[in-house]
């Protein structure tokens, strides 16, 4: 088994530092030469030329969360799938491909069941959920 | 003969699986359910027949198969608390298995004809399968506990089948009555099991035998200063189970009412198998009965039942009621057999009775099915319409009446002969012998009364007669009856016609019944301690050749002189029973064919007796009107009266007066001390404690978490490692 020299991570660190340097450097450079005349109107958030009403940090549609939720599940799934996929070729060469194929199928199909469920329930529909009105949910929320 | 779980288990499991499958199938595909049930029981029959053949080949008394597995084991050191489940097959079990599966198969086949018009055709088979499997499980059980489980399962099936026509008025009550009445016996039976368990530490028959042999039952319970011998208490408790299940006096009242069920179920459950299971239990526990000195009691119970039921049967007009009382009466004979120590004969009577009584019930079912009526006065002359049924019933009546060459004669005569022997030795048994012979006379009379009323003479109700279906031979209508009726011949059970080895047709080899079924006698119970048992799945490795072949013993283990005397007495008894049987038949002939003796005269002369008989000796009246209504309800009323008049008047009102006085004292106390001091103080303290508790139980997760950390910390930080 070959050993792993940690030096391979060096470019990663260098590049991250470089990114910080580029960003910081350009901003610093800019701050030396660019004009600096702030006024109140300039520092107001753009809202089609009107005075901004309230703050933008308001509640958001929950569909974003459901999407993120499905995403994280599949993200984790891919984290598990990567090493197994990486060894699939080798397993196939020594004749164990069938069993691994079965386990990959099981694994993926179970997750497909999840996405099928979400599909059926309309979690993947962006528009449809606008029109979904809860039947009788006790709501403490605003009646917007 | 390598018996493993796979050769034995199907006997029980086939009907059980049929039950499980049919539960789901019954509603949707009834015919498939029926077929599955019938095929399953036939499969059991094949297995049982194989076992029977094996035992016949080995032909040794001591041959047995005993396989166990540990169900649960809670033993602690010396104190045994272990329950083994297992199967125990000896010659008796093998015969019993064969009888049960054969009769059940034929009855299943018959039911496919008898019940096929019924709307709950398939459900009937569901119950029948469950029942058969329970009965077979009971027969195979090697211990009292699993026997009890199957026993109760059968009780449930009996309950369901008696109430099968629940639309019919009385069926529900009858099923309830059967269930509740047998419960009386079952409670005692469970008590007996517990006593055995307590004494022996196991409920296996073999262990109990060995324990009896070793004298473990010799002690006595001390209840309120009265010393009760353990063996007697245990034996009585177990025998109460028999009394309940086998409908012995005085808790026989459920069996006649059980005739509300369909006739095939009466044939299987209430004639051939379940009621016989009670006797089977007593036979299994015979050493315990003997050790408990309970045999005389048992014999008298049996004699009273045999005679009393026979007398009631005399005047019944319902064909199934006659058969029901005759069943009770015959069960009484078996119990007499146990009581007089005639183990072998009693068991033989169990088997022969199962066969001919099943046949009788099926014949009665055939009659009922063809004329849709159960009342004998409306029948008559059916001989021409139902020739095959008539033939079967005739043979069975010969058998039950004790006509020579028929099985009933062989078995009943041996019981009565032994009773006579015992009576001559011990005068206290005279009552048993007389009642037994008297019952035999009555049996012959009422059976032929039934036969004559049904099949002979002129049709008394032409409407019914004309509408009766002509009988044709059919594989599921009357072939089962004919098969069963063939086996009412005595030579299948005994090589001789008399059962005494007298007219020996086929050599002593054919006395297999009395040769193989051996009484577990008190004198050599110790050898049961050496009965080895095996785990399930282990194959039988014992060398069969080494077992000595059983030989027919002319003297039955007695010395020559005594045996000779006994034989003499038996001959006397045999002649006496032949005479009695024929005189009974002749009386019936005179009354109902020749009509030279008018039954009406008898009825008028003995009007009081007749009324008593019609009311079944007022047993139902006694139980319901006297014990429950006069005893329990008045007691109830008395309590109520006491409560309302005396208790209320003096105790309650008196207390009120006292209270009123005390109240004044208390008020002062209350106002001054309790309220201001303690109540407010309590409130304050509760508020204080509340503060603590509220803080703890606040629903605030972080607080819980802190408490968790602190507790965990104080635990771990005090540990040393």
């Amino acid at each position, binding site marked *: 088994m070959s050993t792993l020299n940690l030096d391979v991570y060096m470019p990663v660190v260098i590049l991250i530092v470089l990114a910080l340097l580029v960003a910081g450097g350009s901003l610093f450079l800019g701050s030396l030469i660019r004009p600096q005349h702030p006024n109140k109107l300039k520092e107001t*958030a753009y809202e089609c030329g009107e005075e901004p009403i309230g703050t*933008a940090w308001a509640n958001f549609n929950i569909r974003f969360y459901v999407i993120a939720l499905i995403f994280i599940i599949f993200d984790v799934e891919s984290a598990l799938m990567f090493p197994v996929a990486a060894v699939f*070729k080798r397993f196939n060469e020594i004749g164990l491909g069938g069993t691994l194929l079965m386990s990959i199928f099981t694994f993926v199909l179970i997750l497909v069941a999840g996405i099928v469920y979400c599909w059926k329930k309309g979690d993947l529909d962006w528009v449809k959920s606008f029109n979904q009105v809860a039947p009788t949910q006790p709501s403490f929320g605003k009646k917007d | 003969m390598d018996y493993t779980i796979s050769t034995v288990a199907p006997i029980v499991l086939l009907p059980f699986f049929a039950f499980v499958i049919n539960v789901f199938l019954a509603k949707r595909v009834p015919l498939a359910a029926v077929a599955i049930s019938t095929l399953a029981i036939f499969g059991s029959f094949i297995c049982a027949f194989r076992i029977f053949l094996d035992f016949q080949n080995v032909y040794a008394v001591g041959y047995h198969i005993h396989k166990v597995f540990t169900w649960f084991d809670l033993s602690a050191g010396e104190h045994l608390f272990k329950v083994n489940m297992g199967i125990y097959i000896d010659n008796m079990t093998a015969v019993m298995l064969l009888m049960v599966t054969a009769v059940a198969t034929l009855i299943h086949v018959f039911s496919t004809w008898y019940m096929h018009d019924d709307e709950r055709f398939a459900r009937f088979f569901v119950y029948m399968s469950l029942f058969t499997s329970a009965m077979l499980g009971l027969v195979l059980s090697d211990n009292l506990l699993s026997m009890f489980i199957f026993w109760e399962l059968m009780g449930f099936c009996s309950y369901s089948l008696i109430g099968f026509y629940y639309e019919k008025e009385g069926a529900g009550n009858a099923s309830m009555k059967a269930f509740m009445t047998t419960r009386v016996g079952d409670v005692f039976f469970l008590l007996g099991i517990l006593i055995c368990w307590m004494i022996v530490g196991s409920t296996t028959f073999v262990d109990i035998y060995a324990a009896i042999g070793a004298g473990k039952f010799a002690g006595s319970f001390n209840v309120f200063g009265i010393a009760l011998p353990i063996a007697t208490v245990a034996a009585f408790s177990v025998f109460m189970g028999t009394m309940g299940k086998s409908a012995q006096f005085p808790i026989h009242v459920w069996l006649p009412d059980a005739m509300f069920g369909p006739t095939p179920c009466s044939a299987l459950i209430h004639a051939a198998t379940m009621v016989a299971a009670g006797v089977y239990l007593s036979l299994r526990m015979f050493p315990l009965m003997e050790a408990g000195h309970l045999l005389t009691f048992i014999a008298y119970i049996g004699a009273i039942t045999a005679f009393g039921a026979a007398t009631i049967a005399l005047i019944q007009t319902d064909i199934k009621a006659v058969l029901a009382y005759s069943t009770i009466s015959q069960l009484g004979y078996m119990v007499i057999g146990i009581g007089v120590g005639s183990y072998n004969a009693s068991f033989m009577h169990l088997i022969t009775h199962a066969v001919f009584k099943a046949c009788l019930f099926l014949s009665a079912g055939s009659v009922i099915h063809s004329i849709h009526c159960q009342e004998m006065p409306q029948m008559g002359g059916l001989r021409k319409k139902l020739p095959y049924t008539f033939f079967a019933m005739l043979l069975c009546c010969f058998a039950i009446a004790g006509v020579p060459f028929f099985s009933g004669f062989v078995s009943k005569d041996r019981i009565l002969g032994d009773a006579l022997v015992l009576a001559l030795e011990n005068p206290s048994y005279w009552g048993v012998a007389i009642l037994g012979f008297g019952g035999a006379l009555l049996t012959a009379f009422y059976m032929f009364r039934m036969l004559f009323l049904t099949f002979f003479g002129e049709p008394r109700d032409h409407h019914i007669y004309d509408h009766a279906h002509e009988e044709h031979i059919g594989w599921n209508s009357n072939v089962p009856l004919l098969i069963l009726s063939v086996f009412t011949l005595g030579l299948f059970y005994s090589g001789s016609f008399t059962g005494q080895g007298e007219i020996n047709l086929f050599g002593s080899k054919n006395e297999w019944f009395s040769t193989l079924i051996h009484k577990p006698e008190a004198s050599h119970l110790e050898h049961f301690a050496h009965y080895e048992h095996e785990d399930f799945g282990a194959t039988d490795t014992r060398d069969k050749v080494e077992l000595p072949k059983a030989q027919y013993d002319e003297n039955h283990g007695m010395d020559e002189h005594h045996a000779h005397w006994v034989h003499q007495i038996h001959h006397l008894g045999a002649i006496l029973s032949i005479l009695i049987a024929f005189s009974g038949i002749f009386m019936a002939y005179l009354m109902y064919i020749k009509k030279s003796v008018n039954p009406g005269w008898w009825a008028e002369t003995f009007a009081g007796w007749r009324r008593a008989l019609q009311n079944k000796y007022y047993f139902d009246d006694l139980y319901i009107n006297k014990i429950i209504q006069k005893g329990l309800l008045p007691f109830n009323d008395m309590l109520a009266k006491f409560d309302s008049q005396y208790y209320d008047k003096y105790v309650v009102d008196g207390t009120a007066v006292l209270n009123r006085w005390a109240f004044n004292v208390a008020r002062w106390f209350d106002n001054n001390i309790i309220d201001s001091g303690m109540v407010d103080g309590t409130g304050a303290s509760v508020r204080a404690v509340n503060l603590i508790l509220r803080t703890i139980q606040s629903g605030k997760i972080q607080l819980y978490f802190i408490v968790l950390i602190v507790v965990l910390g104080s635990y771990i930080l005090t540990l040393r490692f």
Partner: protein
Amino acid sequence: MNSTVVSYLSQSNEFQNIHAWLSKALGFDASSLMAFVIFAIVALIIVGVMATIGGAGTYAERKISADLQARVGPNRVGPFGLLQFLADGVKMILKEDIITTNADKFVFNLAPVMCLVGVFATLAVVPYSSGFILADLNVGIFYLVGMASLVGVGVFLGGYASNSKWSLLGGMRGASQIISYEIPATITIISIVLLAGGLSMKTLIGAQGGGMQDWFILHNPFAFIGFFVYFISALAETNRAPFDLPEAESELVSGYHTEYTGMKFGLFALAEYIEVFVVCGVAVALFLGGYNVPFDLGTGALFSKSLGLDSMLSQNIGQLLQLGAFFTKTLALYYVVIWVRWTLPRLRVDQLMTLCWKYLTPIAIFNLLGCAVWMYAFDGKSIFALIMAATAGGGAHH
């Protein structure tokens, strides 16, 4: 195992000499130091090139769009307007930096930097050639996926920090779009990993060949579909048209960078253009044979053998050929990206999600399973090898 640009250069004698000299002069093993220096230099080169490509990307975009729309495009600064992007860059730096009063200043400053860090970190594993790769990590492609997801965080934070309604909407949309399209892309990558049998870039590319028949895109039908799934997902992940909803001018003004001015906006733009290059490079590496040059010219063995050149020199020539192959393919894809942008109309947000979750993800999962079955059924042979075996009775072409 892990080949880096350092391990490539260490084959040369000069490197060994310098190493020996330095170690002697400094008194300790200087390999780490040298590695650091080389890495730093190479990283600087790459960043420079990337910045140039990013800048040139804006120029190319304008020129190509003008071409497509029958306009002239930038033509004032320099010949054919070639220096336009430099002018833009200078303008960015010179613009006033405005932070709105209600903004979350810390996050506002952090967001573009995070985007830039995420994109720059991915450059470490982009395989320009077999030697000229910064670090061939064992988990190469997986690392790339992880680092690229930082961009999503940056976009979201940028939208959030501005405290402007347009920004926030754009940020939310952008983040959810990026994460959504990461799923089909990742699953397609897994199916290619399945074919190649490893996660490192060298394994992935080494399993392919120079000729088109050895590329994974033509390995089997599933991989062929997979390429398009990956490419569409990559477009959406980089917020390129037709998936540029987060910055949809007509409805969201300018999306998550509405409130950004000057160089911070420039950083966002730079990150975006570099990311486009990176995903094109990944697409090339995964599907189009990567840096492989036909007829094994990339190893340089042919030059040293037939022309009798010095081995290092011939290897260098091979590397140059490989670089050429890689950049040609990548820039061709880059062109396609720009072409698509100016050809297709923008999708609606519900169409975007429908495309991702109802078409691409199921297809990607199907492709994954299909690739697995293909691997199992045909022992990993490509469709071309199978045809060759069937027709000529010969073995695989590898």
